[in-house]
């Protein structure tokens, strides 16, 4: 009898332990709408303009988290079932991969005003374009006063512009820049990269600049390198430079010529608990009267045509979507990188590690 009691007590203890474990796993109660973006000052702006007003409209809290990209992160969340994120801002490659793999919900385009209300190339079955952003050359206008760089060829020219160069540590952007510096016209860059000789040529050009290169990974790094003068020029995300000039009164200049632009989109993870609210959020954030406020905070272009038209002229000039800027820039070829990212990243990392 006593023994039986002991066994029961032990069983009960085990059951309590198991329950505690399950609760710790956090699968128990309904989760609030969770929106994930890329963090930093950009997400601060998004929180004020979109997350907080939408929470008021919804009458429920909206959670926001930050991530650094990476398809594996999204894939593992969806595959594990019950993802703990609902709406995620993704780059064009992740959108293409995830939409083909079915890890994103199909969007209800009726609610979003139809794909025609967006600029071409910024919509798909699973994603609605949110911003258009560029990777471009930046320099300190107060330090390079005699002559200013105009192109990737100048970026490579360390005799004309002495000093180190900052560059994003990815094959994407580095290879395109190298080919343009080597004299390949921007409309032939991806044709060239599609051949093994083109890739070799890009790496050979990168070799030339290697002694002067400083790599960065997080978007805030090149800003401080430019401010301290550690580098004479660096590739940057365009919005951060404009933001820095506005907040800290610096005189950083962007070279729009040969800059490379891409679209970030909102997606909803497949099986997300709050997918309906997520759909409503995307509609809210894409509404022209809301989205058009973004460029005043951070200089990213808007893929919603009506929203772009409402941006005041003083801000519109700094956007990648400004026709003058667009005319001289290169559209990132998503298909190319979806096909070649793994192989070229492996080779690029091997090259960097030499």
């Amino acid at each position, binding site marked *: 009898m006593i023994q039986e009691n002991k066994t029961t007590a032990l069983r009960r203890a085990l059951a309590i332990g198991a329950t505690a474990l399950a609760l710790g796993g956090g699968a128990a109660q309904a989760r609030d709408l969770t929106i994930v973006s890329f963090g930093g000052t950009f997400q601060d702006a998004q929180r004020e303009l979109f997350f907080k007003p939408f929470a008021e409209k919804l009458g429920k809290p909206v959670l926001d988290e930050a991530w650094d990209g990476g398809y594996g992160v999204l894939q*593992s969340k969806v595959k594990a079932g019950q993802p703990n994120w609902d709406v995620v801002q993704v780059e064009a490659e992740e959108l293409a991969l995830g939409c083909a793999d079915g890890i994103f919900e199909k969007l209800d385009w009726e609610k979003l005003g139809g794909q025609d209300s967006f600029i071409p190339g910024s919509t798909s079955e699973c994603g609605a374009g949110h911003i258009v952003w560029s990777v471009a050359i930046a320099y300190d206008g107060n330090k390079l006063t005699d002559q200013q760089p105009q192109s990737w060829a100048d970026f490579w020219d360390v005799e004309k512009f002495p000093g180190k160069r900052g560059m994003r540590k990815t094959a994407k952007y580095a290879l395109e820049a190298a080919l343009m510096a080597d004299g390949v016209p921007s409309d032939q860059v991806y044709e060239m990269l599609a051949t093994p000789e083109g890739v070799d040529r890009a790496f050979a050009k990168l070799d030339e600049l290697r002694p002067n290169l400083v790599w960065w990974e997080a978007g805030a790094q090149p800003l401080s390198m430019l401010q301290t003068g550690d580098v004479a020029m660096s590739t940057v995300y365009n919005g951060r430079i404009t933001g820095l000039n506005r907040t800290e009164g610096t005189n950083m200049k962007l070279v729009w010529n040969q800059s490379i632009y891409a679209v970030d989109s909102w997606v909803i993870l497949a099986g997300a608990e709050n997918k309906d609210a997520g759909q409503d959020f995307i509609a809210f954030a894409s509404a022209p009267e809301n989205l058009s406020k973004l460029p005043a905070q951070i200089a990213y272009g808007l893929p919603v045509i009506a929203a772009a038209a409402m941006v005041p002229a003083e801000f519109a000039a700094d956007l990648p979507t400004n026709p003058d800027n667009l005319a001289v820039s290169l559209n990132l070829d998503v298909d190319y990188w979806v096909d070649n990212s793994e192989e070229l990243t492996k080779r690029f990392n091997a090259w960097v590690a030499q």
Partner: protein
Amino acid sequence: MIKAAPMRALLLLGPLLVFLGLFFVWPLVTVIAQSVSDPSVSRVLNRTAAAIDGWDGTGVPSAEVQAAFRADVVANTDDMAMGDVTRRLNATKSGFRSLMGKTVSAVKEDPDIDLARIDDRWTDTAYWQAIQDNASPYTDAFLLAALDLERDKSGNIAAMPEGTSANATILLRTLWTAGVVTFCCLVIGLPYAMIAASVQGWKRSVLLGAVLLPLWTSLLVRTAAWMIILQDNGIINQALMGLGVISQPLALIYNRFGVVLAMTHVLLPFMVLPIYSVLLTVPGNLMNAAASLGAHPVRAFLRVLLPLSFRGVVSGTLLVFMAAIGYYITPALLGGASDQMLSSVIAFYATGSANWSMAAALGLILLVLTLILYAVYNRLSRDPVEAR
């Protein structure tokens, strides 16, 4: 009734066994299995996998194989499973991603369409070769690739072309960095532990506290603190420049120096504590006895104290080394592009390209290294004094 006692004992062990099974054995088995197998292609393209087995690898496979492939595509209803197939094939042959996207939608529309008409890449032997290479659910390709090796056309193991992969370089770098960190920890930690063991009272408390206190602080916080101290306009550079010792800031961060310095600091407790605990068991009068027998202090140290602390040194060295080879965050924050260790490559495959098999294979290599070291540790940590 007799069996009840062992049963109860087993029940008491239950939570431990469940814990070990759930958080240790199962993940380990999964990782090992993942590194040598990827059943995605053989499962989704099962007809193709069976049919392509007999293909001799020249030209393009026969019409039957192509028909089997189309049948597999039509039969598949799971987009995510097809995504895994595409990812695996694209990792072998770049270009599969866009090719499969096109092909799947075209074949679903017209199940009898000629593949070459969808895209002329289907007339390229290399793409079919990739399917054949991945048709078996078991493969050593990931483990080989983790060491920059591959199988050539005739199936022999050969080195990958120069400059295409740097895993071996990074593995050697990982071992080298861990070795340097271990050496630094030993050089600082051994005398430190000896001093701590030889003093008494508040002095000992202060010395031990200085080692333990950082251990209670998060790794990330300690690494971030080093960033603040070492950067170009950080405390060290500003102080030295203020004193006029240097005119340009020293490069203390984003290089190997910063990584080794911070890792040594973070891992030092794991060297000091084992040595200290061994030294505590050494009778304090041994050194006096050696001196009374006429030994010079240096000789007494070398012949008495050092051999007695050997077990602690071995424990500390292996603990530090094993912890160091898996470091990720410290090299990522304080190192440059050529200071990254193997964990960063694993992170790229896991979170960046969702190539879990490759991540598992690299992880397995770290695991095997650690196990070998553990075996060495087991041998060396047997009491050397008793054995004599």
